[in-house]
């Protein structure tokens, strides 16, 4: 197996996630796209860990997983708050700070 096949797949996942963050306007779907991005990074970390034959890649991937869990928790709480205040989670309507 080449190292590059994992890295290219992770790059593809990352770019799909970036597209999702840019093109979706539903708050929950944007959070899902962020999860795609974080998973792409994790694949990279574990692939490089296997390449260098060390567990450090896995340790960092575990830290990223923990942070992703915290991010989703807070993110969904924010989405729920937006829904409660606006009766919609359309992110293009959340423009209170627009100049």
């Amino acid at each position, binding site marked *: *197996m*080449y*190292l*590059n*096949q*994992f*890295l*290219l*797949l992770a*790059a*593809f*996942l*990352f*770019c*799909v*996630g*970036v597209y999702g963050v*840019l*093109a*979706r*306007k*539903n708050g*929950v*779907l944007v*959070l*899902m*796209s962020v*999860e*795609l991005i974080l*998973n792409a990074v994790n*694949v990279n970390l*574990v*692939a490089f*860990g*296997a390449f260098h*034959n060390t*567990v450090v*890649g*896995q*340790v960092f*991937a*575990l*830290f990223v*997983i*923990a*942070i*992703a*869990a*915290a*991010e*989703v*928790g*807070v993110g*969904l*709480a924010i989405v*729920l*708050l937006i*829904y*409660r205040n606006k009766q919609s*989670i359309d992110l293009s309507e959340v423009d209170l700070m627009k100049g």
Partner: protein
Amino acid sequence: MLAQNVIFAAIALAMAAAALRVVTTKNIVHAALYLVVVLAGVAALYILLAAEFTAVVQVLVYIGAIVVLFLFGIMLTRAPIGVTSDLDNNQRGLAVVVSLFLFGVLGAVLNDAYGSTKLASDNVIQKSADVGNSIFQDYVIPFEIISILLLAALIGAVVIARRD
């Protein structure tokens, strides 16, 4: 060696198709279910890379917890369960251009740097005990900081979502 490559190709195709469906489907519940396919594919990649502990954690935390959290979020925001055309904003074309450009740049750089780098064929299984030793010896301070972060996120989520 060949079997690994065949399995990788199958996993990669499934993941790529499911990831594209996550960002293009018109049904928000289907997006969450396609996300499960992507996350399971990532776990399978970890097993292919002989990182078994991370694969188990991926299944437990992502598929077990985060996807359920997403489904709760979908239900609590009373998202339309069926097909809806109102999930994308009006900058899709620009987003396609940006992500294709990003993929082109990343692919070119990766091909340049790791085009012919092979993983060791006798992939040593990285034991869970080694992962534990590494976390609790070399990375114990980041570990404690992560636990404080999780506590802060827990309290923050409760405070934000509380109804008063």
